[in-house]
């Protein structure tokens, strides 16, 4: 039954709609997810639930109000595009009868889902967008408010009623809008809407929530999230060239060390899942796939700590820490398997690296003699410096950096690394001499019973704005079965203090753990405010504009508290979790 909107709706029509409402609401009713009311076979499915509870606090937050007072925002308000968008906003608000924040809370307080389905013999997929509102009256109100628009556009929009309780509007170019009592559906395909509606009236077609891979994702990642995204990788592979566009081998050694094994697991998983949770204190973003590390082959075991029944350590937190990253990587195995893990064109680079290293560690084979002395757990840490090695501070105050290596053969490993440290310092000294800079002398000191080899200058540098090079005064020490190489002796001492105390381990299976303290990041930026101002001026900003830019970045950084990332594997799954907290 088709008719133009100008025709009055009959009482019978309304009664029929009312009769069908319970049927429509029956499937995927409040409490269930929209995946239960969408047809099976989606390539991609995204869902947002109860976004209104996030928008409300955001609207009232001091962060938003302070952003709106920024000069950059004031400048934006004066631009043409902003004015146009703002005019549309005001028009919409007048038409709706409430502001967009209220509209968002009303309509986004329910669920919003987007699903893509493969369309045979077509490049573009079918899509379904479903909005389910918590209060049916809000949708009815919206429907009333758009009525005059539909009347004005009656030549372009055709309204049809299929007797299934969904009023459908043909918007042109194949786009269909269907409005039920508590939901609104948009699609580029009638059949998809029909599939959805017939599911609701008891047809036997399966829902997306019953898809095998979807259920595995829910089992691994749970169902109760602010937002989630599901990718049916099997379908995506069959829609493409069967490989998800992922390379078989990594083309970057550092990428391979940090992220190796993950892409390979994604390529083999039947799904890819992503969930987002948020509240007034922070957010958590979790990505997950099914995983079977052993099935990848022996070459990949070096990436997965659960196979060794261990875990990366918790990122180190010495005094004034800005951030740290801890890794589980069996580098000996990784290096030995490089031909299987990395693209062939990278391999000559390893030979060159070994030849170069032979000059620093003569008579030793890197793979056979050096790597086996190292354990599989590494930590890298950055911290603000105390500059106890100077009488003054550098003009640009860089953080101190340190690498902590767990040693499989502590005595032998420490001696080799010590030799490397001393030889490397000598090479740097020659370079410093060429550039007319003061060379280092290597010094030995003891801190809490630990011997520290450190570089120092004959004359302690003094001054208020010392050259940047004075940020570096490297030091090395062995603390038990760990070896510390640090860019400054102060950080080395702090790490000795820290490592001699109790240190935590991440849960079994953690392969990587990263933490960032944004207050310390902001402090670091603030210490180098002049540097960043100058950089912005170099980029063409005026001093005032540069000041505004730096203030904005600082304001944002101060709002965020921490950020952490972990990747963790089990016998069945591999998950990466990004957590953030804010004020």
């Amino acid at each position, binding site marked *: 039954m088709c008719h133009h909107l100008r025709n009055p709706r009959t009482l019978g029509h309304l009664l029929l709609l009312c009769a069908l409402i319970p049927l429509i609401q029956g499937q995927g009713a409040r409490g269930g997810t929209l995946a239960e009311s969408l047809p099976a076979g989606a390539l991609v499915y995204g869902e947002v639930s109860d976004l209104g509870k996030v928008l409300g606090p955001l609207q009232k937050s001091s962060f938003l109000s302070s952003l709106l007072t920024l000069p950059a925002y004031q400048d934006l308000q004066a631009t043409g595009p902003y004015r146009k968008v703002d005019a549309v906003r005001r028009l919409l608000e007048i038409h709706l009868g409430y502001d967009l924040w209220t509209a968002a809370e009303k309509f986004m307080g329910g669920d919003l889902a987007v699903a893509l389905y493969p369309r045979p013999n077509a490049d573009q997929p079918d899509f379904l967008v479903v909005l389910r509102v918590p209060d049916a009256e809000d949708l009815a109100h919206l429907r009333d408010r758009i009525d005059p628009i539909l009347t004005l556009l009656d030549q372009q929009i055709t309204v049809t009623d299929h007797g299934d309780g969904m009023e459908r509007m043909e918007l042109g170019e194949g786009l269909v809008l269907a409005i039920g009592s508590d939901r609104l559906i948009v699609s580029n395909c009638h059949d998809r809407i029909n599939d959805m509606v017939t599911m609701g009236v008891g047809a036997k077609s399966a829902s997306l929530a019953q898809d095998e891979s979807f259920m595995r994702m829910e089992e691994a990642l749970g169902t109760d999230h602010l937002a989630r995204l599901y990718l049916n990788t099997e379908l995506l592979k069959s829609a493409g060239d069967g490989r998800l566009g992922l390379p078989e081998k990594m083309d970057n050694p550092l990428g391979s060390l940090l992220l190796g094994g993950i892409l390979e697991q994604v390529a083999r998983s039947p799904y890819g899942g992503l969930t987002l949770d948020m509240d007034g204190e922070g957010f958590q973003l979790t990505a997950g796939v099914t995983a079977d590390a052993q099935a990848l082959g022996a070459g990949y075991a070096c990436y997965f700590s659960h196979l060794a029944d261990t875990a990366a350590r918790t990122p180190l937190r010495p005094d004034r820490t800005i951030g740290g990253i801890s890794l589980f990587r069996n580098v000996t195995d990784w290096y030995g398997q490089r031909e299987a893990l990395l693209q062939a064109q990278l391999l000559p680079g390893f030979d060159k690296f070994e030849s170069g290293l032979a000059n620093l560690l003569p008579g030793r084979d890197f793979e056979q003699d050096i790597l086996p002395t190292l354990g599989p757990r590494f930590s890298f840490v950055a911290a603000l410096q105390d500059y106890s090695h100077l009488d003054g501070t*550098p*003009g*640009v105050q860089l953080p101190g950096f340190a690498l902590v290596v767990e040693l499989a053969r502590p005595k032998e490993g420490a001696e080799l690394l010590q030799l490397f440290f001393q030889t490397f310092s000598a090479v740097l000294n020659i370079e410093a001499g*060429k*550039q*007319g800079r003061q060379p280092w002398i290597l010094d030995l000191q003891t801190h809490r019973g630990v011997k520290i080899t450190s570089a120092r200058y004959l004359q302690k540098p003094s001054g208020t*704005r010392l*050259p*940047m*090079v004075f940020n570096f005064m490297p030091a090395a020490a062995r603390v038990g079965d760990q070896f510390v190489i640090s860019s400054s002796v102060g950080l080395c001492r702090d790490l000795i203090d820290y490592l001699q105390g109790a240190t935590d381990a991440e849960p079994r299976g953690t392969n990587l753990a990263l933490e960032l303290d944004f207050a310390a990041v902001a402090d670091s930026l603030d210490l180098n405010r*002049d*540097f960043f*101002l*100058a*950089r912005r*001026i*170099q*980029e*063409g900003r*005026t*001093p*005032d504009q540069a000041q505004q830019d730096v203030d904005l970045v600082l304001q944002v950084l101060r709002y965020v508290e921490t950020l952490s990332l972990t990747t963790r594997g089990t016998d069945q799954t591999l998950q990466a979790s990004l957590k953030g907290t804010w004020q």
Partner: protein
Amino acid sequence: MTRGAHGNDPLRPYDSGTMGWTRREATHLLWRTQFGASKADIDNALAAGLERAVERLVTSQPESQSFQRSDHLLRQVAEDTGNILDLKAWWINRMLHSANPLVERMSLFWHSHFATSDVKVRSVRHMAAQNDLIRGEALGSFSALLSGMARDVAMLIWLDGNANRKRHANENFAREVMELFALDVGHYSERDISEAARAFTGWHVRNDRFWFNRRQHDFGQKTVLGRTGDLDGEDVIALCLAQPACPRFLARKLLHAFVTIVPREEDVGALASSIRRHDFHMAPVLRQLLLSQLFFSPSARHALIKSPTDFVLGAYRSTKSSENLRQTARVLARLGQDLFAPPTVKGWEGGRLWISSSSLLQRTNFVADLVADHVVPINSEPKRPERLVQYYIDLLLSGRADETASDRLVQYVEEGARKPGARTRGLLHLIMTMPEYQLM
């Protein structure tokens, strides 16, 4: 003074009342004395008149607070990082935004004259200190500048001052003082150089400062440029300055930089006399030159090939583009003028050497990038094609474009893009890649 009082003196004052003080003369003055000229610069100079416009150039003008702040920050970050690219950015900012552009132009002139390169010195602080020394005397006393250079740490590193010892005199600095800094080839003998080198022995660097190393100074008798005695470095400098060749050498270089690449001998002589008369003080010499008939003579117009700094910074200033200073330093290096790294001890010889098939292509690429990414069309530019073309011919070519070229540009505007921004960008691209735009 009237023309009659000066006779045929090439430095007689240009009579702007009779000969004209139009946009063309103002543009000519500004392109030679700063790095390009915006429409506002030209309007201001025109309104001020020739004498006041020149006076503003040769006397110290107060810097704005905004400039002082950016100058301080950029200099500080260069010294903090020790990265020469940051020091280049600092100087480019001064060239573009200082209220004393002639000081910056003369600083660049002296930088090329004393051609010291960070490639060997490898110290931002020393290069910056030398630049400060140059800037302090850019319009001041050449004798003070030469004397300061003899004690400058960057110069002493550059010309191996610490290797100049009484038993093994190193002639590098003494040779350059005579050949490149004060006299030119043909006005000294090899013996003058070896004797002068002895006078500079013991002028060393210690703890990043000039240090007179008495134990390595040769206090014996020397004969330099006809004078004998226990001469030291200062004596050698004074002897060089006293030579007639010295002001002629400087005059030729100044004319080469400000007037023409082929100066006439009588013009050199006239300017040398001015230099001697003003005891090597540059401000009065330049005042006289910039106000002279010679400076505004037809043969001096469009007679210089723009250096990369003129070309690039002039393009920024004319089009009011925002500029990335570090990126600009890299562009200048690609075009052949790497600041703080002149190619040889002779500095940048300039002139026709600025243009080669490679550098011309680089200039074209620079203009393409500039008009595509940075140029902000001026709101007040004329809308009618003929007027729009004339506006930019006046601004960028000092009105110098023949009728055919002008017609072709109008045709381009009429048939080209409809959007004013794209139209202006296309027009600027065409004008700034014309052969005429390579001249000033």
